[in-house]
């Protein structure tokens, strides 16, 4: 579904991604982890071309992302993304947040969009707040709305950029529960996260990155039981002793 | 395109330089006077005494509501009257364009400087004032050693920008036929019927000066941001 081939990226003189390659098959859940500055957030933002790359190629469901001629908005409408800081649109109600892209990008009718929005809000447990604005909700609630907003577009795969890092601890689980459900339903997911419990539970594979390089890319069971590289071992020991 | 002749500008340079000198004098006096008076106004607006706060507030709001041209007209009329009243003279006393211009711009711009300074003072963390008091400073000492130095350091770019605005505002002395830079250029231009050449020259000079100054201010500002980020 997602193919990343030999991509490299620079910010000025600083190389952020060094020759990274990996693949996410349909229905797979891949977790990307690593110390801060490892480039994991940048990697995931390259998949829907929010960040440009200088070399290599990326394709989603057979369509190249890096080819200059493709219709990026159309491609992005099929790839769902959830951000660390939720990024709900504050001037719209949460129902409107879910509906607007359906209407303006997918050209659905307003009734259809609203219906879908309500269904999704129910699914994430927030239908009671449908008329509220994002500012009136807690962080965990906002992130669940953000997931619903991405799902409203009927995406073929979902990208998560540290979805729980900005949440207070007591709200992390409500968001992870939604993500686990999604995984169990067979959604293709690529997820940057520190939540190793989540990774252990649903991830098929784990990618460990450090300083712009993919150090390990293995079956998640094997990764957690016996990480091959020293850096991965160090990283895991720091995280898991929490 | 009529026949342009910029040599007339060259010939008039000494006279224009005099005009520019006057412009710079007014700017300098209004800058210093305006900042001093503006600081006093800012302190007054932040004071605990209600009557002082209201008085200063009313003054600042009044000055900021009226056009500078109207303020110039007012002050050029009032100064002779007030001086006459002070000196007990029956007739308005002629004070002269220069001094009146100094007074007018100081009084007017002080209101604008006041708002910049007030914001600067309020941006200094409350804890600073408390720390000063805890050490035993009086209000004046606190202001002098703790608050104002920090406030001014942060405000210098904004103050300088206001000075650049002041520099441009002095061109309005034209309305009382003063011989500032624009006034001088205008007089020669009308005498020689060379409006195009002179006004173009004036625009270019103003542009070069203001653009350079604002670049300097911006460089200073980024140096300030960098050093405060490390603090």
């Amino acid at each position: 579904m997602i193919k990343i081939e030999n991509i490299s990226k620079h910010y000025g003189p600083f190389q952020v991604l060094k020759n990274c390659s990996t693949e996410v098959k349909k229905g797979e859940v891949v977790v990307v982890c690593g110390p801060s500055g490892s480039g994991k957030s940048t990697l995931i933002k390259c998949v829907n071309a929010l960040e440009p790359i200088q070399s290599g190629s990326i394709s989603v469901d057979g369509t190249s992302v890096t080819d200059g001629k493709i219709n990026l908005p159309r491609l992005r409408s099929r790839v769902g993304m959830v951000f660390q800081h939720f990024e709900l649109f504050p001037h719209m109600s949460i129902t409107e947040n879910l509906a607007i892209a359906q209407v303006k990008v997918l050209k659905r009718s307003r009734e259809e969009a609203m219906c879908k929005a309500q269904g999704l809000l129910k699914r994430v447990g927030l239908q009671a707040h449908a008329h509220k604005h994002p500012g009136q909700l807690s962080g965990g609630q906002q992130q669940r709305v953000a997931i619903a907003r991405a799902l409203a577009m009927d995406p073929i795969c979902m990208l998560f950029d540290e979805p729980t890092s900005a949440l207070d601890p007591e709200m992390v689980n409500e968001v992870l529960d939604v993500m686990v459900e999604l995984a169990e339903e067979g959604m293709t997911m690529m997820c940057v996260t520190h939540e190793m419990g989540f990774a252990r539970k649903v991830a098929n594979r784990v990618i460990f990155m450090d300083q712009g390089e993919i150090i390990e890319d293995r079956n998640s069971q094997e990764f957690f039981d016996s990480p091959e590289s020293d850096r991965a071992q160090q990283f895991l020991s720091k995280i898991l002793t929490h | 395109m009529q026949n342009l002749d910029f040599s007339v500008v060259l010939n008039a340079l000494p006279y224009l330089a005099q005009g520019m000198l006057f412009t710079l004098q007014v700017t300098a006096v209004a800058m210093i006077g305006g900042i001093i008076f503006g600081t006093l106004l800012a302190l007054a607006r932040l004071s605990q005494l209600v009557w002082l706060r209201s008085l200063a507030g009313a003054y600042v709001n009044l000055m900021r509501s009226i056009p500078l041209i109207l303020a110039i007209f007012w002050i050029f009329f009032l100064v002779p009257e007030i001086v006459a009243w002070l000196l007990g003279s029956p007739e308005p006393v002629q004070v002269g364009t220069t001094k009146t211009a100094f007074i007018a711009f100081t009084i007017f711009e002080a209101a604008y400087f006041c708002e910049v300074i007030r914001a600067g003072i309020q941006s200094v963390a409350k804890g600073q004032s408390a720390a000063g008091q805890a050490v035993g400073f009086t209000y004046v000492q606190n202001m002098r050693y703790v608050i104002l130095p920090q406030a001014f350091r942060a405000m210098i770019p904004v103050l300088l920008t206001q000075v650049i605005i002041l520099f441009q505002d002095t061109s309005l002395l034209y309305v009382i036929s003063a011989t500032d830079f624009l006034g001088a250029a205008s007089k020669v231009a009308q005498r020689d019927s060379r409006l195009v050449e002179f006004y173009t020259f004036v625009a270019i000079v103003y542009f070069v000066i203001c653009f350079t100054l604002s670049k300097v201010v911006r460089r200073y500002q980024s140096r300030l941001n960098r050093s405060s980020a490390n603090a």
Partner: protein
Amino acid sequence: MSFNFDVYLQQSPEPGMTYIGLLGSGLAWTVALALSAWIIALVMGTLVGVARTLPYPWLVRLGNGYVELFRNIPLLVQLFLFYFVLPELLPTDLGDWIKSFGAPWGPFFTAMIVLGLFTSGRISEQVRAGINSLAKGQRAAALAMGMTLTQAYRYVLLPMAGRRIIPPLTSEFMTIFKNSSVALTIGVIELTAQAQQMNEFTFRTYEAFGAATLIYVLVALTVNRLMAMIERASYIPGTATQER
């Protein structure tokens, strides 16, 4: 220092007009000038401000150049450039056509355009700052959902930025209102000009300038009240408590 209200009702040299009528006509010219220039300023300012936030470096530089041009030359000098210099620099036919506009419309339209463009530079600064003050994530989120850049600006960035810049826009409107007085130098008989004329005819300076001052202050108060109402009407629930 005696204040005499009767002077307002005196007949002025203008046939059939009292002084208060003259002041009223001055106010009308001021309002007309300020409002029409304001529209130009808003349109141009928004266009240039948005252009300066787009991912096209040449466009950003063009926008920056536009702002620098209008910001580093005094308004009065710009007015003279437009009124005296520009018609001479254009091809003769165009220049003559412009010069054929007699008072009061020639000076009025010139002042309107100059004031509008001058203020548009300042407004573009507010717009640019407003858009950039939004977290970068908002743009990313809109694009990630498949919106085009235009849609992202239209539905997400501009609505939020618009609300944020209401306070600075208020002060910009007051500034344009005050700056309109500059037009008196090319013959627009706006409020300050009328006050000065009244002073010259009646020698009642306090009454003449006092009336103009009062009117400007009242306008300032009204505009502030109006903008506070607009701010309240556009309030987004939850904004006050939202931390980022």
